[in-house]
């Protein structure tokens, strides 16, 4: 009983309104708007730099979005940590490789889920950057 009451999700309107206030405070204090996808460009550049530093330095897109840690990079790291802390504190942290809905439709295979997730991630990020999102 305790577990189910502790795991009850927050009202999405209240959580969404608080996220809106957080955004307004962020814009006020640091002038930063929320985003995440640019961070994946910077991180990809950082990974590529380890094998081909000169090539990365010459690429126009990595000149535009330099491979370095910035406000948004730390924002994304914060999301991981905040989610981890909140899930552990509320008893909803759960190590799971295949989401329930995916398993119900496509079976419990980890390899299939990871393959689809990897492909989906690559396609989604390419689209996000093309749309400048």
């Amino acid at each position, binding site marked *: 009983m305790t577990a189910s009451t502790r795991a009850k*999700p*927050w009202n*999405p309107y209240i*959580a*969404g*309104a*608080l*996220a*809106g*206030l957080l*955004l307004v405070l*962020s*814009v*006020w204090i*640091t*002038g*930063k708007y*929320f985003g*995440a996808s640019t961070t*994946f460009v910077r991180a*990809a550049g950082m990974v*590529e730099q380890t094998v081909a530093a000169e090539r990365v330095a010459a690429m*126009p*897109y*990595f000149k535009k979005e330099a491979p370095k840690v910035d*406000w948004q*990079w*730390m*924002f*994304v790291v*914060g*999301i*991981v*940590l905040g*989610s981890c*802390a*909140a*899930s552990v504190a509320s008893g909803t*942290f*759960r190590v*799971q*490789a295949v*989401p329930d*809905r995916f398993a119900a439709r496509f079976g419990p295979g980890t390899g299939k*889920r990871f393959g*689809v*997730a*990897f*492909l*989906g*991630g*690559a*396609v*989604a*990020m390419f*689209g*996000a*950057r*093309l749309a*400048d999102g």
Partner: protein
Amino acid sequence: MELIFGLITGVLFGILLQRSEVIRYDRQLGALLLQDMTIVKFMLTTILVGMVGVYLLVDLGLAKLAVKPLILGGTVLGGLIFGAGWGLLGYCPGTSGGALGEGRLDALAGIAGMLVGAGLFAEAYPLLKTTVLTWGDYGKLTLPQLMGQHRWVLIPWFCVLGYAFLRWLHKRGL
């Protein structure tokens, strides 16, 4: 200092995302299948509160808008491609980090894929910049500019329409 603010803001945002369950694969797929509108409720409320608050700050001279250019080629094609990938992955770039934080290992595969996608985009950028990203370029444009109305005329309307839409979702049990 800026990095610390980024981290703190991310932690608070991550708590809100996790406790309202909007980072779950099942919820994101539920939204794409128009069966569970939890993330739409969260996002629309965030947008409405953010719209009012940010424009107040702008009018008080305390903040600047960060308007991105409207390039139809990039936005329409990129949106379609993003949607296809989102449907496969079931997390968006920000929520994949949140999903990893609450123990969802498939988010790691998604993050690896996103790094590859970002790298591929960087390779394709010089070509895209002279083609797709020149199609339908209207420059930096806001809805008040586009509609020729003062922002404080439009903002109450957006709030009313947003509220009506959320009530409609609520009545339909979504």
